[in-house]
C-alpha cells in the first residue's frame, strides 16, 4: 500500500430483473495499489448495498470475481487500480460478456460448469501432467502419485473475450476445449465426437483473445490448436484401422 491517494469515478453497470441496463457512478478516494475488487466492495459496504457481484477467495483461486474493467476481461482481485486507470479518471466495471446477467455484475456461469463436466475436465491432475511450467520429461513416473490443482480456475474470462462465443450459444468455448485437451483424445476417445464438431474446435477462428486474458496460464488457444492436431491424427488412425 502506498501513501498516494487518487480520486476516481467508479462507473458500474447496473441491471436488475426486468430493468433496462444503466450505469451508476461513485466518486471515491482510492489507493492506486488497491485492487479493483477492493473498490467495488467499498461501494457495496459504504455507498450502495443493492450492488450485486460475485467474489470469494481474493487471491485468484476461486475464479468468481471476473469482470470487464474498462472493456477488458480481468480477475478483479488481482488487478491493481494503478494498472487500469489514473488519478481523476473514470474506471468502468461491467459484467462478463456471453453469460446471462443475474444482477448487476453477477452473471450465470452455469453453462460453463456444465460443459466442463461434459468433457470430464479434471479439477486436480497428477503433477506429471503439469505442462507449461514443468514439462513432462522433468518428472519421474513415480511422481504421478502427487496431485495438483489444474490451472483452469473456471473464471470464464476467456469465454467473455472470445468473439466467436459472442455469436454462438452452442460453442463449447476456450476453457472447455482446453479441459478436453488436457484429458487427451487417447485417454478419453469418447470426446472425439463432441470436440470434432461445428460447436467444437472448428468454431474457433484464431483470435487468441482467450490466451491474452487468461489469468492462470492455461493458454487455451494453444490447447485448442493442439486438440485440432489430436483430432486429425485420431481421424486418420481410425480411417487406416478400418481399411486394414
Amino acid at each position, binding site marked *: 500500500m502506498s501513501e498516494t491517494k487518487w480520486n476516481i469515478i467508479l462507473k458500474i453497470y447496473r*441491471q436488475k*430483473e426486468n430493468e433496462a*441496463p444503466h450505469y451508476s457512478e461513485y466518486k471515491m478516494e482510492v489507493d492506486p495499489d488497491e485492487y479493483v475488487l477492493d473498490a467495488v466492495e467499498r461501494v457495496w459496504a459504504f455507498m450502495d448495498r443493492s450492488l450485486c457481484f460475485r467474489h470469494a477467495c481474493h487471491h485468484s483461486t476461486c475464479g468468481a470475481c471476473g469482470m*470487464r474493467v*474498462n*472493456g*477488458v*476481461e480481468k480477475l478483479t482481485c488481482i488487478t491493481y487500480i494503478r494498472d487500469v486507470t489514473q488519478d481523476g479518471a473514470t474506471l468502468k466495471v461491467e*459484467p*462478463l*460478456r*456471453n*453469460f*446471462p*446477467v*443475474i444482477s448487476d455484475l453477477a*452473471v*450465470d456461469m452455469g453453462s460453463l460448469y456444465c460443459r466442463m463436466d461434459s468433457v470430464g475436465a479434471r479439477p486436480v491432475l497428477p503433477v506429471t501432467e503439469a505442462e507449461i511450467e514443468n514439462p513432462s520429461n522433468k518428472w519421474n513416473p513415480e511422481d504421478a502419485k502427487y496431485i495438483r490443482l489444474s490451472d483452469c480456475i473456471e473464471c470464464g474470462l476467456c469465454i467473455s*473475450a472470445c*468473439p466467436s*462465443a*459472442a*455469436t*454462438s*450459444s452452442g*460453442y463449447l468455448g476456450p476453457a472447455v476445449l482446453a479441459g478436453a485437451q488436457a484429458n487427451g483424445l487417447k485417454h478419453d476417445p469418447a470426446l472425439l465426437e463432441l470436440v470434432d464438431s461445428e460447436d467444437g474446435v472448428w468454431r474457433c*477462428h*484464431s*483470435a*487468441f*483473445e482467450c*490466451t*491474452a486474458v487468461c489469468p492462470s496460464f492455461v*493458454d487455451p*488457444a*494453444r490447447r485448442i*490448436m*493442439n486438440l*485440432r*492436431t489430436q483430432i*486429425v491424427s485420431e481421424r486418420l488412425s481410425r480411417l487406416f484401422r478400418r481399411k486394414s
Partner: protein
Amino acid sequence: METQRNRPSPSKFWSWFFPVGRQTGGWAYVLNRVTALGLTFYLYLHLIILSKLAQGPSAYDDFLAFIHNPVYTFGELLVVAAAFLHGFNGIRIVLTTFGVSVTRQKQLFYGLMFIAIIIILIFGIRMFTA
C-alpha cells in the same frame, strides 16, 4: 430471473468489430472478417460486370473504357489488397492450427502482413504506372 441481454446471439456479429481491448490476434480476426466481406461484395460486383458481356462486345468495350480511370484502379487495388491480406492471414490460421508458431502467433501475423503489404505496394506501383 436472469436477463437475456448478455447471452450469445448471431445478432451480436457487430461485436466482432468492437475495438476496445483487442489483442493482436483479435485484430487479425477483425481483418479476416472485413476482407472476407469486401471480397464477397466484389464477387457479386464482378458477376454483374461480367453480365455486360451478354449485351455484346461493344457494350463491354465501352464499359472497360469507362472504368479506365484512377478511381476504379484504386478500387481494383483495394480488391488486390483484400485478397492478399485475407490469404496471408489464412496462412497464419493454417499454420497455427497444425501447431506451427502457436506461441509466436503475433510475430507470425506481423511477418505475414509485412510480406502482404510489400506485394500490395508492388501491385499498386505497377497498376498506377502501367
